[in-house]
């Protein structure tokens, strides 16, 4: 702890794709697409949105699934298509890309902050670290279950304020 947080290479590349994009307005438009299970996170903040390209009237969007079987991926894909077609784009292709594999390291700092405020403890930097209670910030927590209400979460309980809470697992 205390060290300067290092940005992951894949993270930097993703940010560069957005920064240097020829169609920044489309990236901004897709900021309105949220994770259906965690509505405070956009698919960009979550690290799912990888690339947006425009070729004439044709839009190609690349997304990376969080978990292999995450049912929310299908919803996100449809939401991307809807957001773009509502804005007048009729030729939209959403492509799923597995590699490089999604990691919680891709989450933006804003996303981590938003998660904590929403009551979900943001992911730690490795699988052996314990999360902080999002209510009272105590580090005295117990794991209740390796899995929570969705594949990406585990269930914890705070020993100080006694509140149970969801933890966004480190992956």
């Amino acid at each position, binding site marked *: 702890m205390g060290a300067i947080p290092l940005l992951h290479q894949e993270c930097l590349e993703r940010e560069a794709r957005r920064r240097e994009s020829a169609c920044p307005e489309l990236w901004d438009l897709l900021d309105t697409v949220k994770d259906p299970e965690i509505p405070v996170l956009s698919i960009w903040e979550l690290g799912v949105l990888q690339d947006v390209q425009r070729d004439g009237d044709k839009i190609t969007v690349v997304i990376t*699934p969080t*978990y*292999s*079987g*995450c*049912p929310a991926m299908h919803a996100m894909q449809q939401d991307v298509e809807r957001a773009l077609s509502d804005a007048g784009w009729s030729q939209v292709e959403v492509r799923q890309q*597995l*590699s*490089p*594999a*999604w990691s919680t390291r891709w989450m933006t700092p804003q996303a981590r902050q938003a998660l904590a405020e929403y009551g979900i403890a943001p992911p730690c930097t490795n*699988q052996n670290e314990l999360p902080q209670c999002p209510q009272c910030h105590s580090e005295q927590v117990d794991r*209740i*279950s*390796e*899995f*929570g*209400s*969705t*594949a990406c979460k585990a*269930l914890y309980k705070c020993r100080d304020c006694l509140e149970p809470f969801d933890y966004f*697992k480190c*992956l």
Partner: protein
Amino acid sequence: MTTDQTALLQYALGEADDALILGQRLCEWCYHAPYLEEDLALANVSLDFLGRAQNFYQYAAQLDPQQRTADQLAMLRDSREFRNLLIVELPIGDFAFTMARQFLLDCFYVEFMTALQGSADPNMAGIAAKAIKESQYHLRRSHEWLLRLGDGTEESHRRMQIALDQIWGYTMEMFENSPAENELLAEGIAVDRSALKPAWDTRVNTALVEATLSRPEDGWSVRGGRDGIHTEHHGHLLSELQFLQRAYPGLEW
């Protein structure tokens, strides 16, 4: 179509079938697990395997000369066409049996997916890169259960030992390369399953000692899944898994 593509299709299908059938078995625990958190955990692990199956089926569909879709490959093939290993199709048994199987498979998958990440085929490597993280997480949990039941009460120890004894002969098939795999080995596409055995042995032996369980003798073994020769349980599983698509062909969610 080249011989290579046929072999690659067989390879992807074998992995897809393993994941689908195991995922289906695990979700049978839904609403029946010992307590709520365990119910959630088993359903989520099941979901990981169904997702893994989907990834492999989608790739297989791209290679299929008959141009079947991923859904058709999963839902419209008969038992003899499935290439899954026998270990994944065995009924769930009691909770000890389910966790014993899961632990032995998780130990295998952690080694297998690590190796498959280095596959010369970028699609297989990409799927493995996702799967490895999930399997590491699964193993942490199944390992904890092995310890908790093995080194638990007299009853839980007894059941875990019985489960291991019953399942042991089905583990050998995990380490045998199919003809398709042997063909793909030379090009660095397939993983050499037999080479994973020592690392698997070490993991399993260490955990068994910790859990005060004894490693069963290598006396018997059953095989046939990769040739489409399945146990009597397989057809029953498919009848439930495939019911909807058989009764209402082409139905979508």
